């Protein structure tokens, strides 16, 4: 019997419209056998938290290219905790400067995949952490 497939929410936080990378990751994760729910653009922290709860996902991924990832993640973290989603695997990719990595990790975004990361690295991280 096949086990339940890993479910991944991929969201574009804030107003950033650069979704080429996010859509590449969606396709890569689908090809790797995950179930992927892509939110589209302009997601607020509360919308991401609610979608994660409603969709019953194992993994929450954000793709941010326009620099507002830290304020977003600071708001998202307590919203996830309030919904009992504190143990979900959180990833973030995009234009994420190295100087922000420590705070992102502290906020629970343990998978950080800056621009030019390989799809396989994201797939491996999810397989390792979301079982």
């Amino acid at each position: 019997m096949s086990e339940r497939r890993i479910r991944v929410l991929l969201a574009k936080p804030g107003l950033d419209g650069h979704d080429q990378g996010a859509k590449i990751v969606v396709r890569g994760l689908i090809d790797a056998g995950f179930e992927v729910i892509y939110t589209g653009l302009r997601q607020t922290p509360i919308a991401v938290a609610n979608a994660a709860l409603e969709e019953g996902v194992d993994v929450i991924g954000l793709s941010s290219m326009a620099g507002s990832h830290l304020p977003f993640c600071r708001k998202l973290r307590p919203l996830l905790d309030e919904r009992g989603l504190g143990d979900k695997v959180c990833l973030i990719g995009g234009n994420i400067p190295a100087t922000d990595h420590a705070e992102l990790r502290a906020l629970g975004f343990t998978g950080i995949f800056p621009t030019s990361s390989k799809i396989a690295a994201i797939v491996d991280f999810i397989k390792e952490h979301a079982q």
Partner: protein
Amino acid sequence: MSERKAASRRVVNESGIEIKTAYGAADVEASGGFSHIGEPGQYPFTRGIHAEMYRKRPWTMRQYAGFGNAADTNQRFKFLIANGQTGLNVAFDLPTQIGFDSDSPMAEGEVGRVGMAVDTLRDFEVAFDGIDLEQITVSLTVNGSAAILIAMYLVMAEKRGYDVAKLRGTAQNDILKEFIGRGTWIFPVEPSMKLVGDTIEYCAQHAPKYSPVSVCGYHIRESGANPAQEMAYAFCIAKAYADETLKRGLHIDEFAGRLSFNFNIFGNIFEQVAKFRAARGLWAKIMKEEYGAQDPGSMWMRMIAAGGGGGLTKEQPENNIVRGAYYALISALSGTQTMALCSYDEAYTIPTEHSARISLRTMQLLIEEMGLTETVDPLGGSWYVETLTNQMRDKMVETMADIDRRGGIVSLVAQGLAQAAVSAQAYQMQKRIESGDFPKVGVNCYREEEEEAKVEFHPYDEDDAKAQVAALDAIRAERDGRKVQAALDRVEADARAGANVMPALIEAVRTYASVGEITDRLVTVYGRYREPVVF
């Protein structure tokens, strides 16, 4: 060392054209001959839209700039102008581009981040203070809220004493491509098209030197299209705007001369040059034969060719300076009217003064030292380039026919199908890069172990956002509230009546109504776009 395959390997360019080891006259003949080429400055303008090109005037140098508030941006503008830049290309922050005021909850964390924050006419007054708007033409990179910002620019110029009937300048205002890539849409597709028509119609009648639309293949290429598709999508979109405007009873020659284009440069040098030459001839033919244009200006594919971010790499960022130099060379060899380059550090940050100046100097080197301005279309007559020009044109025609067969660009965008097609290609390209099949220096060959962030970061100050909100509060307190409300009521009423909203927008920005207040009224009538998610 990158592994070079055998000399006999099959080479196919990104647009799907097989490249031969050598070309001769027979190849040109077999691909369609020299009949589409003509002379520089003459129909079909393949060799350039002007007979003298850069002898008369070098390309305009228009680096994209803007950040923080209007005063910060005004300083950067003056820095660029002092360094020899000849046009401005204004970057707005995302709330401005999407129609949110700086105090909107949706704007939190985004005010002034990727461009200048604009709430009211006051911001434009400050941003362009001390800049001669006849000497320096201004391009506004804005789409969703373009109609409002065009209104704001016209009012600002008029208050400064310029005659709007003679005012030059450009707005990007290409909403269809925002649905495919870049993403700063506000309203659904249909009213978005209507607004573009309103701006073209209004400018044709009141600001005939102003270019109200710059149709962008650029971002579609960034989103995954190949070079031939980049042009084909842009032309389908430009035709959709022309059709929208013709419905209002204008003649094509009343507005086509002010339509302009924004294209991307990265990849194979010869494919790029052939792309631009082919596209120039094709656009002229479309305008003349399909639209019955008679004015040569209506047939000109006027463009900004920009050295694209999609070609640059985060790895070994200094390599991007060299890439930028090649992109600028391509742009000059292609006969562009305006040039811009992504700066070498753009994978990391907003360009610093240092990196912006390098981009500017790159273009100035070509003008001053390399002889690029002396002769028109220097690659014309090359058997290779002429063959490729013919073949690229065939690819563009094929792609345009395919888009039309599938229901046309407006319908494909509304259904999310254009987006899906382009992003599927981006995924295939990503896989080719990851496998090493498509070489990228520093990424999949000649790699180095490197520390991140050797570049200087442009600082983002959250206090600037607070200051912007405080300034907006002050304007709201001092403006005539009754006039503002009356002007906003008229915007809503005109939108509801299906009238051209530009006159109402002009009056509204004049009262210092804000971008967000005006957008909200339009949303009341038009609604907001809901993104179809199609894979």
